């Protein structure tokens, strides 16, 4: 099974979960996902997901000046984003249990 295809379905949930821990920026989100073992997801997919979540009102962003280079765009989760995260988590738990029951002997 193609890991990238599997990840696409849960990327939105994973990104929301990372940002729910605290305000963060794109590269840090990518690094957190990779550190968590989701290293098959492409940068463009993460940035595209961030854009879609922001457009949907689940995230808000602000530019913060950086000493080491250009300004960074920080993302924070909104109330709507938390609701989306909670709903997505429940769905994921249910699906995960169901798939576990199927694939485990």
């Amino acid at each position: 099974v193609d890991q990238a295809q599997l990840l696409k379905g849960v990327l939105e949930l994973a990104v929301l979960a990372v940002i729910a821990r605290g305000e963060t920026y794109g590269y840090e989100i990518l690094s957190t996902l990779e550190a968590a073992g989701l290293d098959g997801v492409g940068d463009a997919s993460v940035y595209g997901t961030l854009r879609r979540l922001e457009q949907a009102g689940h995230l808000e962003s602000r530019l913060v000046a950086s000493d080491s280079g250009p300004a960074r765009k920080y993302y924070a989760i909104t109330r709507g984003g938390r609701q989306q995260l909670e709903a997505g988590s429940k769905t994921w738990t249910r699906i995960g249990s169901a798939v576990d029951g199927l694939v485990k002997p």
Partner: protein
Amino acid sequence: VTAGDYVRRVEFELRDLPWSQRRALVVDLRHHLAELPPDTDLVERLGPPERYAADLRTAAGLERRRGVFAYLRARRPRNLALVAIALTALGLAIATLAWIHTYQPIATGNVGYEPGAHDSPTGDGIYYVFHQGRRFRYGMTIANEGRFTVRVLGIPIYWELPIRYRLLVSGSGTIYRGPPPGPFRPLHPFDLGPGEQRMILFSGRFSEPCDLRQQGSEGFDEIPVRYRFLWHTGTAQVALMDPLTFVFTKKAAAGCPPTR
């Protein structure tokens, strides 16, 4: 591939998106590239720009757009405004040129001067009976009915008139009444302002009708007036106050050689 090249190629792949949306994506991409370690191989890390654009499009839920409306929205608003301004200016310039080239304000005035003429029995003009050597005078006013001054250059008549004449022009006026306005002077180019009238006077003598090569009568109902407005020169056909006819008796044509 430099960061600038990479951004340009991604932006090119997203060229169908509305300009503001594409602009926001490009800004995000620049932020992203700036966050990467300086020696990062962009193609190795991010994949080819074409694939990056495709993945970005898919993840952000951005469908490919087609059609004229999408094409216009994909253009930078400032550029669209500049094109609109340029097209408007061009249209105005063309309209102005067309207007200048069709501007013709010269019309028949309100006075005719026709000493010795007879009213036509049919009531549709006047006629002069040809008398060799007799004095001939005929005048009519022309008026500028427009809003701008034009320069009258001359009266380029090509009629074969049975008269030898000089063209004279009166002083300036608005509405003439009574006798012809004088003094007259030889016609040279003159300015005719808005609402202004001047009388054009044919002054001479009847002479040699044979050039007309016919007996009976010869009629005219308009005169050409050559004029200039700005850089455009044109000829206005101005209707005579009364259609003008020359009547030739048998005696008048008696000395003419026979027509072939």
